[in-house]
């Protein structure tokens, strides 16, 4: 496979240097083949083509970083394929099943456990030990941790993502608060004041979408719940820590501090502008969107803040999100692919990448650049990124949160169940999903 790639590349490389660009390929292809094979063995300068898959906007933009890399490493060519996020997971797994995964690819960091279970990605400890660019202490701790399973490192953070509190400064000031909430109690108090101020109008203090699992998991983590227990073999949602956090959020629906009817919020930017809600926990992509979509007169009226905490240890934890770069375990070009990962992890490349797509850099040092220092909205993210936690690192996690937590949170928010019932059922469902994991672990013991 490798030799074929090299042969193809030398063909492309040669065609510009040798004067047979216009030779009728069909007639003389056989001769060319022989000639190229011969010329290939003559030159030491082998060219390696790396296949690289990246998702979404990042995948579109990353090709702009390639020319500089190829200048630095003339014997490596990068071939990028861009995959839309909505199809990424299916595409990667299908590629694994048909053994066509690329040499190096981007992976949402919550997918790493799954690809580790598949035995599809290579451990990187050895590469890191010999690297002058990548080392654990350059990265945010919580984010780095999402790439480590049983002390083996499988991915290098490429860009990061976490959730913070977006809020309306002007509304908060109008009910007598200068600073955003630092504790859960403050958040609740402020919310009650905001509700009372807008009595009679359909306005709420906080937007907690019932069709999103994120806030429930964040508050659970903040309250010290490990979400799963016994070596991640059983669910622990009905445990006291998660239940208290869950009940705290449910109180927002019960006290009419948060809307349960999501149809009222067709467009969150418009709703945020109208003061339909004051608090909203969301991610960095919405900084760009808010700047773009809120009217200019409101641009000074909103701000971001780290998340409040259940105790006095401000800020509270948030999710360690983002994407990592991983190596295909079966790739023959791992050393070259590692060069590409290193290149993308360099401070300059990370900054350049931020300027291209505004994906938050994974390397801490980069945040000291003036681009970030001058952006007040980014401060909250920088602080928050120091306090993030990984969700349980097992392949089943995504299925549990996406298919189950949402469903039960919605049922309780709309008063179809009480939280005790819902969390017991949630545990039951999650334990069913975890059955295979228990079986495998018991087999290995």
């Amino acid at each position, binding site marked *: 496979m490798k030799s074929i790639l090299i042969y193809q590349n030398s063909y492309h490389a040669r065609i510009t240097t040798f004067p047979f660009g216009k030779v009728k390929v069909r007639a003389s292809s056989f001769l060319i083949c022989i000639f190229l094979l011969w010329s290939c063995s003559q030159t030491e300068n082998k060219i390696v083509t790396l296949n690289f898959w990246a998702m979404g906007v990042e995948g579109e933009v990353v090709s702009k970083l390639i020319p500089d890399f190829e200048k630095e490493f003339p014997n490596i060519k990068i071939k990028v394929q861009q995959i839309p996020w909505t199809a990424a*997971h*299916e595409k990667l*797994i*299908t590629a*694994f*099943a048909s053994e066509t995964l690329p040499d190096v690819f981007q992976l949402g960091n919550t997918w790493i456990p*799954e690809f580790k*279970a*598949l*035995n*599809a990605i290579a451990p990187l400890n050895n590469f890191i030990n010999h690297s002058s660019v990548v080392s654990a202490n350059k990265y945010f701790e919580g984010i780095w941790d999402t790439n480590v399973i049983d002390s083996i490192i499988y991915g290098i953070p490429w860009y990061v993502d976490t959730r913070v509190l977006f809020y309306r400064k002007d509304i908060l000031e109008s009910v007598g608060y200068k600073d955003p909430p630092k504790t859960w109690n403050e958040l609740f108090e402020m919310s009650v004041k905001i509700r009372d101020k807008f009595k009679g109008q359909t306005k709420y203090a906080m937007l907690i979408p019932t*069709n999103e699992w994120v806030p429930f998991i964040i508050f659970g983590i903040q309250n010290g719940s490990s979400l799963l227990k016994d070596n991640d073999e059983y669910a622990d949602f009905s445990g006291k820590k998660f239940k208290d956090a869950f009940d705290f959020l449910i109180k927002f629906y019960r006290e009419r501090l948060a809307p349960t009817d*999501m*149809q009222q919020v*067709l*467009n969150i930017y418009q709703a945020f502008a109208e003061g339909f809600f004051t608090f909203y926990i969301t991610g960095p992509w919405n900084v760009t969107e808010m700047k773009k979509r809120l009217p200019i007169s409101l641009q000074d009226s909103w701000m971001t803040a780290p998340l409040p905490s259940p105790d006095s240890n401000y800020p509270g934890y948030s999710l360690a999100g983002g994407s990592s770069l991983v190596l295909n375990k079966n790739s023959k070009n791992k050393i070259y692919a590692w060069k590409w990962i290193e290149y993308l992890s360099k401070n300059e490349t990370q900054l350049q990448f931020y300027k291209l797509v505004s994906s938050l850099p994974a390397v801490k040092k980069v945040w000291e650049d003036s681009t970030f220092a001058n952006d007040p909205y980014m401060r909250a993210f920088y602080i928050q990124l120091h306090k993030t936690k990984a969700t349980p690192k097992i*392949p089943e996690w*995504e*299925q549990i949160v996406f*298919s189950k937590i949402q469903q039960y949170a*919605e049922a309780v928010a709309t008063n179809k169940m009480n939280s005790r019932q819902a969390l017991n059922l949630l545990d039951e469902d999650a334990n069913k999903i975890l059955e*295979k*994991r228990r*079986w*495998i672990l018991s087999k290995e013991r």
Partner: protein
Amino acid sequence: MRSSVNIKILILFLGPSLIVLTVFFFLPVIAAFFLSLTDFDIYSLGNISYLRFVGFENYVQLLNDPLFWTALKNTFYFVLVGGPLSVVVSLGTAVLLNSKFVPFKKLFRLIYFLPVVTTLVAVSIVWKYIYHPRFGLLNYFLSLFNIGPLDWLGNPSLAMPSIILMAIWKNFGYNMIIFIAGLQNIPLELYESASIEGANAWQKFKYITIPMLAPTTLFVSVITMIGYFQLFAEPYVMTQGGPLNSTLSIVLYMYQEGFRWWNIGYSTSIAFMLFVIILIGTIIQFKLQKEKYV
């Protein structure tokens, strides 16, 4: 002697297609059935020794899965409401296009057939815009009559009707062509003699057109039903099964279980359930039609 020649000819003509069918259809179906008796999942994909034979446990679990029943209910809703409506619309346009009073028949036939040959995904994306609560064409028209704005795809009770409406628009052209062919096969003498007897248009339609079209109608309804049971691309593109699972169809559920969560064993058992349901539906339709007209 003669029979051996026949067999040779049979093999010559049927062989290639039988081989293709076996390799690409029968074998995968059998393999899928065996998969449905196992718990093939992401672990098994990485390491085949993590595969367990579970017998009919997947099927038992499926019958106890509330989401499966929701999907089943939604699919039946779609088939039972959308299917007959689609057949009626096709028949209506076919009769109109077959009548002598309509000009530009070929043009209309072309226009009505266009959606059928357009890619479903592209059509779904366009309809997503048409249904947009704020900028959609449909709400714009309704606003002229002071109705709305309605959140077509965001409201759990409106989402399925919206998908049915789109599916009918997309599919009726195909059945319409078949109906037109069926209509042209009805001997004109029947209508003439009916006219002489003094039958009006409705009576002619009821006592001549409908009975004469019975075989066509049977074919059309079976094909439509089978197609509609496999509802997938519309909700996949437009709603992802939401809101509140109100547009989750069986095939979409199968897809999510299989390709999103990679529970292949479980999702193949859904596929076989769907197969059984379609089989039963077809048998019932054949029975009904036979009793009526034969």
